[in-house]
Structures are given as structure tokens and as C-alpha cells.
């Protein structure tokens, strides 16, 4: 049948054309072609690299991690001595980067929230001040700001003898910022235990009050009892235990300060520049989030007799947060990535201490680059995992 039909109507299409026009076959062909090109390209680069490395006597292994690094690091969060291994250097850099990111995120959030609310103010002067603060700072490069803070502010400060002093506890000079360091005394562990217990209790009370409200509609006061538990109980415990925390104050001895905590100028400059720069973006996110909740929501809540404070807490904020949180998290990620600019002012973060100093010292380009990029990839994948979970949770439940 088929052969009769095809011969009578028109000549059968050439066999090659018919299977080439099949979408599935073509998809497979394209993919094979792509794989061949990509694998070929990578193989070309790898073979070049292997030849080049063997010519220069370089090695791609990780065995150098156990070798002593033999250079000093100006600022370390975790203990490090000159002569520790490269692995330790990597850990030091990692810890410093995470420290900068954590503190920067804290400050950036506070400043961003503040500026975002100022941007929404009814007051014309405040609104415009906030606007120009944001416009000027986010339209200039971050690296320029970091360098300006470091070379234009912190290294131009007076020497330790002429320090700027605040109530004999805090000193600011060209060696950095000095503040009293806490010294735990016997009994401090017990105090921490009490603190943890009160915080856990407060959280439990909050959850219980919320469940009660959802089940019975009875509204218990939450804010003041929680604050009371968290503040009063630890303070009492602290006093009862005989104030088990001493302060190690910075004291000027000769040309420099002894004691206390010294925050180096590079760290100060980096934190200030990063948090100020990121706060501009956070401010815009906060503003957009709050503006995204339509005014009808407020009006409806008021019409139902909901108090203004509860309207903000239970109606506006939950809806605004849905818009705010995803871009906010990606700003946090940006801040973490931007902390790598520390290298410009010599602060020993991961990139500076690992991808620059260690790489130049050991010459192990490939493992070092892979480890650095691996760290940032892991952080970013982890954050996007968390964000996907969050987005799934807050997704509008539509019919």
C-alpha cells in the first residue's frame, strides 16, 4: 500500500533528508556536536596546560597544603604563626572573609533599613537627604570607596599619642581602632548557660503565644514579656554571679597601645565601605518592598478594626518581606563576594592571602584557584538553595 501511494503521488524524499528533519534526531546531533566542541576545547586547554606545567616544572597536586607557608599575616581571627602550613593559611583567609561578611551584613542591614525608611519619610528634607545619600554612594565604584576610606581617612588619622578618644575606652588612630576586650572570669560559662536558657524560653513563649492566637484568637502580649525575659533574667544572673566578666582596656604605652582589641585600619575601612555601599542597595530594596504592598491592605485592616501597630506587624510586613527577602539575600551574597576587594588595601582576606600571596609563593596556580573559586561557589550554591526553599514557602497560595 504505502509503496504504491508514494510512487504514485510523488517520489519518496531522500532518506538522509527525512531523518535529518526529525526534531529529536537533530536535537541529539546538536548535543553531540556541542559535547564534542566543548570536550575538544577543554582537552586542548588541558593538554596545553600539562605541557606548559611540565616545561616549567610545576605540579597540580594538593600535597603543598602540608608545607610550611613561611609568611606572616597581619590580621588573623583564628590563631596563626609564621611557619604554619598552607592549609592553615587557607583557613585563616576563609575565617577573615567570613568575619568581614558577617559584620558587613549586620551593619549594612541596619543602615539600609534606616535609609530605606528615611526614603519613605513624609519629611521632604529627610527624604531627599536619603535619596542623595543613596544616589551618590551607589553610583560610584566600590573599589574607589574602599580606597578612599583607607587612604583618605584611616591612614590620615593622628598617631597613637594624639588618638581620638571616647570616654577613655575607645581610641581611634592611624594604627586602627582600639576598644576594650572582654575577659571571661570563672562563672562566665554559667552566665552563658542562663542566657541561652532565657532566650530559648522567650522563643518558646513566642511560639506558644502565636499558636494560642491562631487556635483561639486570644492575643497575648509578646514584645514586652519577651524583652523582659531576655534582658532582666540575664542581668540578674550576671549580678548574682558577681559580674564574671572583666574588661581589658587599651592603655597607651610608649608609642603604641597595649591590651584591648585592636581593629586594624584596613578592616575598619573595608567594613565601612562595604556596609555603606551595600546599605544603598538594601535601602532601595526595603523601599520597594514596603511600597509594593498596596494601600488597600492598610485600609482593609483599619476597616476591620486592627490596631495600626498590629497592621504593620501582621499585615504589611509579612507581605513586604516576601518581596524584600530574595533580593536582600542576593545583596548579602554580593557583599560577601565584594569583600574580596580587600586585596586593594592589603587586608588579608581569602583572595588576598590565598589567591595572591600563597599563589605567588608556592606557584601552585591550579589548586589554589580551584580552592578559592570552589569556596565562593559553595557559598553561592548554599545561599541559592536556602533561597529556593524560602521562595517555595512564601509562594502565593493561589487557587
Amino acid at each position, binding site marked *: 500500500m504505502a509503496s504504491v501511494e508514494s510512487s504514485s503521488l510523488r517520489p519518496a524524499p531522500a532518506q538522509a533528508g527525512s531523518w535529518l528533519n526529525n526534531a529529536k534526531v537533530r536535537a541529539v546531533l546538536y548535543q553531540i556536536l556541542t*559535547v564534542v566542541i566543548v570536550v575538544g576545547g577543554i582537552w586542548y586547554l588541558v593538554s596545553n*596546560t600539562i605541557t606548559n606545567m611540565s616545561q616549567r616544572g610545576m605540579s597540580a597536586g594538593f600535597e603543598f597544603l602540608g608545607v610550611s607557608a613561611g609568611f606572616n599575616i597581619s590580621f588573623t581571627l583564628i590563631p596563626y604563626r609564621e611557619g604554619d602550613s598552607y592549609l592553615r593559611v587557607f583557613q585563616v583567609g576563609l575565617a577573615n572573609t567570613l568575619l568581614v561578611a558577617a559584620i558587613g551584613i549586620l551593619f549594612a542591614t541596619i543602615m539600609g533599613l534606616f535609609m530605606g525608611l528615611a526614603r519613605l519619610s513624609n519629611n521632604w*528634607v529627610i527624604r531627599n537627604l536619603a535619596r542623595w545619600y543613596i544616589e551618590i554612594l551607589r*553610583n560610584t565604584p566600590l*573599589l574607589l570607596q574602599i580606597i578612599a576610606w583607607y587612604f583618605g581617612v584611616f591612614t590620615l588619622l593622628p598617631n597613637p599619642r594624639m588618638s581620638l578618644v571616647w570616654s577613655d575606652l575607645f581610641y581611634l588612630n592611624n594604627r586602627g581602632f582600639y576598644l576594650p576586650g572582654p575577659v571571661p572570669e570563672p562563672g562566665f560559662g554559667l552566665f552563658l548557660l542562663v542566657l541561652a536558657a532565657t532566650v530559648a524560653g522567650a522563643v518558646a513563649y513566642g511560639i506558644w503565644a502565636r499558636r494560642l492566637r491562631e487556635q483561639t484568637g486570644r492575643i497575648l502580649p509578646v514584645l514586652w514579656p519577651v524583652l523582659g525575659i531576655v534582658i532582666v533574667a540575664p542581668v540578674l544572673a550576671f549580678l548574682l554571679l558577681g559580674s564574671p566578666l572583666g574588661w581589658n582596656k587599651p592603655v597607651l604605652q610608649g608609642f603604641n597601645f597595649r591590651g584591648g582589641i585592636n581593629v586594624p585600619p584596613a578592616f575598619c575601612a573595608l567594613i565601612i565601605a562595604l556596609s555603606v555601599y551595600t546599605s544603598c542597595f538594601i535601602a532601595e530594596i526595603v523601599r520597594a518592598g514596603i511600597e509594593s504592598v498596596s494601600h488597600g491592605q492598610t485600609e482593609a485592616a483599619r476597616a476591620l478594626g486592627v490596631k495600626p501597630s498590629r497592621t504593620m506587624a501582621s499585615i504589611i510586613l509579612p507581605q513586604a518581606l516576601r518581596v524584600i527577602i530574595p533580593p536582600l539575600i542576593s545583596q548579602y551574597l554580593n557583599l560577601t*563576594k565584594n569583600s574580596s576587594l580587600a586585596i586593594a588595601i592589603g587586608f588579608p582576606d581569602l583572595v588576598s592571602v590565598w589567591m595572591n600571596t600563597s599563589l605567588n609563593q608556592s606557584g601552585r596556580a591550579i589548586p589554589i*584557584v580551584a580552592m578559592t573559586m570552589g569556596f*565562593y561557589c559553595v557559598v*553561592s550554591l548554599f545561599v541559592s538553595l536556602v533561597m529556593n526553599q524560602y521562595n517555595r514557602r512564601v509562594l502565593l497560595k493561589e487557587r
Partner: protein
Amino acid sequence: MNNLSPPQAAHLTDIPDTVKVFVPAAARAAPSSTLGATAWIRKNMFSSVPSALLTILGIWIVYTVLNGFIGWAWTNAVWEASSRRDCLDKVGNAGACWPGVVVWIPNLIYGLYPKDEVWRINLAFALLIVWLIPLWLPKVNSKVAIGLSMVLLFPLFASYMFMGGEKGAIWTALIAVGLTGFLWTVLTAVTETLWGVPVLRLVARKFGATTAEAESRIGQVVLLALFGVALFIVFELDFVEVRTRVWGGLFLTMVISGFGIAVSLPAGIVLALGRRSKMPVISLLCTTFIELFRSVPLITILFMFNTMLPLFLPAGVEVNQLLRAIVAVCLFASAYMAEIVRGGLQAIPRGQYEAASAMGLGFWQSTALIIMPQALKIMIPNIVGNFIGLFKDTTLVSIIGLLDLLSMARAVGQDTRWIGLFIEPFFFITVIYFVFCFAMSQYSMNLEKRLNTGHKR
């Protein structure tokens, strides 16, 4: 009206004088407290006690900042001096020392580019502006083609103008392609303004083409002729080679961000289409590339290319540092651009794809003719935003030793005559960065507003 009887008509007009008719009293003027500048000030600055306090605080901040700034930058500033020592002798640290910046302005803009050859940079940017003008002419219809030709072809021509030196056969052809794009843009802008027809079609009609097919065939011949003219011009050009090591300042910043945007736009489109592709291998490869480059900081990519590109390439192939930086920036920008394009593609409703399929358009046809034109329109503000980010990020190349605007500003303080001069040149380049970025962001916001009209109620 005619059948209205006289008594009835009379009745209507016959109202006795004693009946009171309601006449509304004239409206009173609005209270003076709600009118004029005082009312506005009261409402926006002093509506409550906290608000009034905030206003006073704000005004105090503005006054302090402006007062200090004007005192430093204008009142106490030194405008004529031969060295930083002079400035310090005159005003100390109380005023700015502008002569150092003024002397360095050529270097801040062109880096160490030879003074005799600077005209080439100026000419190239003048050509760029000429290329841009048609985008604002109301009668020009081929704006998309002109814009694309500018982004994609201008770098070809400009890189020769900047670099000069020997040009082989392929290089010559590429430069000529760039020049052809320029000639076509100018001619099209002229013919569309005067006769409303793009130049190729106009010439084709002059030669007697009646059908669209004939028009496009003759158009191609005309384009080829234009290419011939361009080739002839390029053969005649003979520029002295200027090594990229001396490129610097604002010029270098523009070159790097320009290359970044020119490469990242097409690369981003390809990557985004690949990521959305139904073919698993292609989608996986594109997703890996995009996520890898988006998750690491630009500085690590710059370092990687700076140290590892010589390892990747066969022995003996030298890649100069500028090219390494440009490759790194392009890869980084492409990954970001891909996500922007993907966002734009996701905003196009499914119905558009289905309608295009129903009309019998294949994947490439529906993408090029139906989806991309709509998606690109939505993406423009984000693309501009990406470009602003790229422009700011080019400062990072100073870390790997290129002489961009930031490096040149720091170099001022290392000049023996202006030793230690830091704040003034930094202030100057901050203004440059701010003006560029702010202008672009305002432009993109305006564009967003204009493009949004169709969807906003």
C-alpha cells in the same frame, strides 16, 4: 417646540417676584494655611514635633557638609601652584590643591597614550557619537539595526584606531566590516530622514527593483559595494602602533566596559537561549557556565586569567595583559547578561510562542522575529543597569596592574611634584564615575517609565 401652547410657555416665565430662588453663596477661598509655600513647608517639613526636629537635623547636616565642602573645594582652594609644596605653604590642608589635578587631566583621560596620537581616540569617540545620533532622530526607523550595528561593529573599527600598527588580511576585512557599518548607518539616517526609506532599498528602487526579493538582492550588492569602499579606505589608513601597555585613564575604562557590553550582549542571548533549551546537555552546559561565573567575584576571575591564561595557551603565544582582562570581564558580563535575557524571555507569555508556532515559524524565526524584539524591549533597563555595574567594576583591573582611571588618580600622588596628593584627584574621578553612572541610571529609569505605559493603569 412648535406645538407648545402659549399658556404653558407663559407659565414657565411667569414666576412671581416673591418666590425665593436658591442662589449658592460664592465659595470662600481656601484657608491660607493650606495654600502656598508656607503651607507646603508646614506639611512637608514641620507636620509634627519629631518631623520638625528631623528637619532641623537634616538642614544642619546639609549646612555642615556643604559649608565644609565649599570651604575646602572653593573658598580655601589653591588654583595656581607649581607643586604640592606650594599649595601646602599657601593653605595647608584647609583647601584643595587643584593645579595637580589640572596638570594631570590629560593623563587621567588618556593614560600614557602618546600626545601626538590622542586625536585618534578623539576621532573614534566622535565617530561613536555620530553613530549614536540617529537613535534620537525621530524619522529614523532602523533604530534597532543601527543600535546593534553600533554595539557589534564599532569595536572592530575602533580597536584598529586605538591600536594601529600592522594589519593582516583578516584584520583588514574586519576593520572594513566595522567601517561599512558606520557608512551604512550614516547613509540610512540621511535617506530615512529625507525620503523615509533606508538607503539599501532606496538605491534598489532607483535601479528599478519592484519586488521585495529584487530589492533585497540589489540591496546586498549595494552593501557589498559599500564594503568595497570601506576596504579601500582601510587600505589607505596607516596608523602608528600604540602598545596597549600605555593605554589608560578614562579611555581604558571605556574600552574595557565597551568590549564587555559588545561581547556580553550576543553571548548572553546565546547562553540564555541555551539555558532555556529543551536539550539537556546544552542546558546543563550553559547553566554551569552561568552559575560558575556568577558565583565567584570578578577579582578572582581576573586573577585566574592573569595567572592561568599563559598556561592554557600553547607555548609561545603571548597574550597581553589588557586582552586577559578584557576576556575575563567579557565572560563575567556574559553570565550576568544571560540571566537578564532569561528574565526577559520568561516575561513573554506562552501564547506568543504558541502563536508563532501556529504561524509555522521555526525556533530561530520565532525567536528572532517574535520573542526577542519583545523581550529586548523589556530588558533594556536591566541591560543599562548591567552596563552601569560593568562600568564600575572596570576599576578592578587596577588591582592587576592596568592603568585605568583609578590607577591614574593614584599615580598623581606618586608624581614627585604632587607627591601625596590623594583626595583631590580622587574627588575628580569620583565626579566622573558619578556623572556617567547617574546619567545612565536616570536614562534607564525614564526608559522604564516610558516602556511601562502599556501595562500600567
